[in-house]
């Protein structure tokens, strides 16, 4: 069955009822996605399907046919460093899930928005304040980098025109 995994076309074989979580971990060797509760409460297994955060423990493999999947292994984002620096990660089991959920938020995210959007991810170590700091910092750094890249590319275009 074909789908796009972290930007690359993949053709994987597994039972159509196998959980996406197990296909990722066991068949494709991507163990960054963690299993927590196995019932959609904790968000440790969060991945993005077509840009939307979902619990990979509740997704039959058959339902990912033709989709674009992103897992923590496919991410290079300032959120990762921010989680390390701001005390957003302690034991680390919830961290990949939090980062995947946070990726769907805007650069200028508010505390309220974070609280609502990350309510599907549970952390038993940090007390969440480190996580909120990390998400805010990571997303704003990413936003600034994006803006800078845009500025550089328009400046380059202008220079080439002259």
């Amino acid at each position, binding site marked *: 069955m074909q789908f796009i995994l972290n930007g690359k076309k993949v053709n994987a074989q597994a*039972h*159509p*009822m*196998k*959980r996406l979580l*197990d296909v990722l971990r066991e068949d494709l060797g991507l163990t960054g996605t963690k299993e927590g509760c*196995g*019932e*959609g*409460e904790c*968000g440790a297994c*969060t991945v993005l399907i077509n840009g*939307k*955060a*979902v*619990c990979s*423990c*509740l*997704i*039959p493999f*058959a*339902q990912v*046919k033709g989709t674009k999947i992103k897992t923590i292994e496919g991410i290079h984002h300032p959120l990762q460093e921010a989680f390390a620096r701001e005390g957003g990660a302690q034991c680390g089991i919830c961290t990949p899930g939090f980062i995947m*959920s946070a990726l*769907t938020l805007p650069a200028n995210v508010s505390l309220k928005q974070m609280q*609502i*959007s*990350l*309510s*599907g*991810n*549970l952390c038993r170590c940090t007390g969440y304040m480190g996580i909120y700091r990390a998400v805010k910092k990571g997303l704003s750094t990413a936003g600034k980098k994006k803006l800078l890249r845009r500025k550089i590319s328009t400046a380059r275009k202008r220079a080439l025109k002259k």
Partner: protein
Amino acid sequence: MRTAISTLKLLEPNSLNQAFKIMESHPGITPMAGCTDLYVSLNFGTLRSTQFLNLWGLSDLKKIRIQGDLLSIGSLATYTQIIHSTPVKKWIPMLVQAAHSIGGMQIQNRGTIGGNIANGSPAGDTLPVLAAAEAVVILASSRGTRRVPFNSFYTGYRKTVMQQNELILSVEIPKLKGKQWFRKVGTRSAQAISKIVMAAVSRKNASGKNLRIGIGSVAPTVIRLYKTEEILAQTGDIAEAQKTLCSEIQPIDDLRSTAYYRKTVAANLLAEWWEKHLV
């Protein structure tokens, strides 16, 4: 995962007609949509079914449409779709509130309104809304379609009027006039299964007040509080209405709450709604 998946069979129709044919030839097959509830049972090894029908690809069932005075919400519309739908926000804001209160973002991205209806849990969070809004469920099989008023859809605990070969196509909700109210009480405000969930519509017109209340987690099915509605509309006596409410519901003690708590909170919610919207 406590279920041996190698023993399970999944059938994948390309069209609705094909789905109906499979249902005729595989009696007892379990339809699956967003799997946010089904896969919980599968994971815990409590699911009896071994044959499944994957409906997720039937994109016709995902649409939310306006049809005259009605909103038609496809059974595969997700909670996220409902939350962002302009017509739902405009006409049935209490359904948007209910969708917001279900699970986290990950569940809202996959869970469907048709799944909530078919699953038939007395704690289903969109169900009191559908009861108070007097929605109609559209069922279909290879033999045709039929319309069932939501308030006669359930016959008992997780039992519905659906035949084995029928699927839910959509749910039709009239564009509501008057004030809407939704309140869910759970262990915490996010990610909880309700201990009490209540939705109400109130409209004042020339002949008096028209009140409709749907309530969940207090009986084997989600119910309408017909007697309480009548007493409130006629007398406006909130104490009497609270007493009637307590006789109309049959809550139980279970792992989430107690019958006493549920009765007390249900009566309090009725008073809250009455004071906020109707006095």
